[in-house]
């Protein structure tokens, strides 16, 4: 029924993109154009957030304050995190979901196209508001992206940041509702839930996480706002409040949030590896169930970010055990990716290189995660560079590498042209080498006792900080190659992409022409099991 209604509706539409720039991009209700907007926006934010990281690494290049005041340094660490999390990683995944979910499930568009437009166009305003605080008299937020009170209440820019976060949350919730509505209602006949690509599954689960936790963040920051401006005492012990309450509420959002940033990456890797191994994904159902159980566990592990706040013994033990459990479904996913490669017939184009680097380096981030879960050891690791190394391994070589791999994987479908494989590989090898030079020494710094979020340090930490900074500058510079490859492919590349693009590519998205026309699947496609990336689902 839903399919027919949508189908009729779309018959009135033009089959080409609207001509005017303003009409096409600002008033768009087309999932492909909105997906492109999201991706371009996130690339811009990636470079803005990256430039903040360059300031941080430059100040930490050697002992002694050489470039910026400590308070500005704290603004940089805070803004780097907020921009990268809410501006770069999350919108990139929403963009990929917008572009690919309708193509993968055989839907003509997203279920709620006008809301899709709104959920994107909120973001530039939210980030303009947030970034503008850097140019205000009191400066930007400097209390860390976690905004722990009472420290965050000392900031003059709190109201701006809280409002920006509200806007980002509204955008995320609308995007998540749209994705759920699309996946549950708009699948082509025959595209059963357990025949959907893993990427679609990962986004379906992620969307539920978003709807569950973004309001929690909104509540937490609203309480900060009323504590600062309206005389409430939610987190003020002087009025009977409790600063630790904020941390509980924040991390009840915050831990699902980190899975919001990694589950779609799991989905992407589960699309890329079977394509270039030319073999169906191993244990499709186990992969789906693993994502679902990771999502469930993400709700009951929040206090592992708070082992140093003086939790009662029983809470320490509960959150330690629950956290360690996550290693099981995560391990299943890693083993299944390796088993997908085993017995395949592999080639190593750029997307596959990023996927393999993801599996190895994300697993290293998982190992340090397991170490951090052990509470007595965490008493030492907590709030040191060991934690910084850990979450950059899962977010940079995890989430960001998956997004880059996905970009190379689907760019020919988006633009109709092949990107430069040579420059793609140059980008990959530079990134993978320098990202390790950047982040691996930070493990040692943390173990040796260097706290995080400090602008200056004892000379004992000098060697590894200098190595890390050099890696950071080179990793940052390597991303200009990425920009060059994408721009070249979009506007200047000559080599046409075939519809299938990759020899081993399976799934509905590869049955439409390259570039994907403005409107696709106006007539629902016929779904054949052998055309799906995970083969027959009789396992």
């Amino acid at each position, binding site marked *: 029924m839903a399919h027919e209604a949508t189908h009729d509706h779309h018959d009135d539409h033009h089959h080409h993109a609207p001509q005017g720039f303003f009409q096409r991009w600002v008033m768009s209700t087309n999932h492909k154009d909105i997906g492109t907007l999201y991706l371009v926006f996130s690339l811009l934010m990636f470079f803005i957030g990256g430039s903040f990281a360059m300031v941080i690494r430059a100040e930490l290049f050697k002992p002694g304050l050489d470039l910026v005041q400590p308070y500005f340094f704290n603004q940089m660490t805070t803004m780097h995190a907020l921009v990268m999390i809410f501006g770069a990683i999350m919108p990139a995944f929403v963009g990929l979901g917008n572009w690919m979910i309708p193509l993968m499930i055989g839907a003509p568009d997203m279920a709620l196209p006008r809301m899709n437009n709104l959920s994107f166009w909120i973001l530039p305003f939210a980030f303009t508001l947030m970034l503008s605080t850097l140019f205000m008299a009191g400066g930007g937020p400097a209390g860390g992206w976690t905004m722990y009170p009472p420290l965050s209440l000392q900031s003059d820019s709190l109201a701006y940041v809280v409002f920006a976060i509200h806007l980002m949350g509204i955008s995320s919730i609308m995007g998540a509702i749209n994705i759920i509505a699309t996946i549950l209602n708009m699948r082509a006949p025959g595209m059963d839930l357990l025949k959907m690509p893993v990427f679609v599954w990962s986004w379906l689960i992620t969307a539920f996480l978003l709807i569950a936790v973004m309001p929690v963040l909104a509540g937490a920051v609203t309480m900060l706002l009323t504590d600062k401006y309206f005389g409430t005492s939610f987190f003020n012990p002087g009025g009977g409040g409790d600063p630790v309450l904020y941390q509980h509420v924040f991390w009840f959002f915050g831990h699902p949030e980190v899975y919001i940033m990694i589950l779609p990456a799991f989905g992407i890797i589960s699309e890329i590896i079977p394509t270039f191994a030319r*073999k169906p994904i191993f244990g499709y159902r186990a992969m789906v169930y693993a994502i679902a159980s990771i999502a469930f566990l993400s709700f009951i592990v929040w206090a592992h970010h708070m082992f140093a706040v003086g939790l009662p013994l029983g809470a320490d033990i509960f959150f330690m055990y629950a956290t360690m459990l996550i290693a099981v479904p995560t391990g299943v996913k890693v083993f299944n990716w390796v088993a997908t490669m085993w017995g395949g017939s592999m080639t190593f184009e750029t997307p596959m290189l990023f996927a393999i680097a993801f599996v190895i380096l994300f697993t290293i981030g998982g190992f340090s995660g397991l170490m951090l879960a052990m509470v007595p050891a965490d008493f030492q690791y907590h709030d040191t560079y060991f934690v910084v190394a850990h979450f950059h391994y899962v977010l940079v070589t995890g989430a960001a590498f998956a997004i880059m791999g996905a970009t190379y994987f689907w760019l020919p479908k988006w633009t109709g042209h092949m990107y430069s494989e040579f420059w793609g590989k140059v980008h990959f090898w530079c990134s993978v080498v320098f990202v390790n030079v950047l982040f691996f020494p930070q493990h040692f710094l943390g173990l*040796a006792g260097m706290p995080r979020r400090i602008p200056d340090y004892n000379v004992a930490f000098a060697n590894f900080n200098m190595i890390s900074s050099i890696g950071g500058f080179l990793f940052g510079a390597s991303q200009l190659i990425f920009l060059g490859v994408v721009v070249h492919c979009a506007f200047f590349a000559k080599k046409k992409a075939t519809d299938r693009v990759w020899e081993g590519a399976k799934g509905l998205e590869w049955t439409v022409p390259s570039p994907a026309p403005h409107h696709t699947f106006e007539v629902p496609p016929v779904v054949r099991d052998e055309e799906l990336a995970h083969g027959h689902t009789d396992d």
Partner: protein
Amino acid sequence: MTSGSIRTGRIEPNQHRTPPGRWAGIRRAGAVSLALALALCSGLAQANPEPGQLNLTRGVTTWSEVPYFLNNVVLGVCVVIGILVFGAMFIAMFRFRKSRGAVPEKWSHNTMVEVIWTTIPVLILVALAWLATGGLVSFADTTGSQMTIKVTGYQWKWRYDYVDYLGKPISKVGYMSKLDALSDKTRQLHSGLDPYAVTTDGYNTYLINVDKPLVLPIHTKIRFVITSDDVIHSWWVPQFGWKMDAIPGIVNTAWTNINETGTYRGQCAELCGQDHGFMPIVVKAVSQEDFAKWLADQQQASAPAPAAASSAAAPASAQTAAAPAKAGNG
């Protein structure tokens, strides 16, 4: 803790040159023998972070070996799993390449291996959880302490108040402890001063030295009550093996029992504003006799001018006392 008696009296001098266990945890046995060898020498343990230090410190207290040991075990487990998984990946990448004529197989499922690689990690995790739980229970037990120190965090310094010692209350021994003057001058933006020139007793103490260290006796179970006057801080001396947040309105507890005399340095570990990086912690651990003498001197010094001493202590408790105190960790 039982392991305490074994370690009592062992001295690890010159840690700055040869940190035991500086390589990964699987070499714990080597580290132990190294420490024993070094125990033949004597001298004060000057526990600074080491240039090029790769692993956690072993620490100097009866409990600090717990995180160190756990760190080494879990790191070893991760290294072994990593070698197996990445090894399998690299074999797959070499054997199953299209350029070598590999033909893709059709299977995509194997119940037996899936059950195996779900079960084995569970067993490993149970073993790790068992190890970690023991250490945690011993950390939570602050009973039987012979001394109490109240630690209060301020933006950006620490205050130490001596509450009781060997069952006797101590009054009016308490003081602020903040970044030493030389580090403070050197760390100013464009100061032109060289951080490498900030040394104490031949060791670089840039940003990890204070004007007045916390003086503690060794071989004494010391209970810390930790709170804050403004924002959240975290009191961390790596050689003690733990950090504990200092939170306004809340009194957290922790304990230590130091085995060796020496100077142990740490830093605030929770972002607390612009000078978060500049509020170090220095503990001077002395023998019980020296401590008794030092304490007597302090009490005597504060006795003739009680008015001045009490007014100095007043701001420490003014705000926190008003709020309902909640004890963490019993």
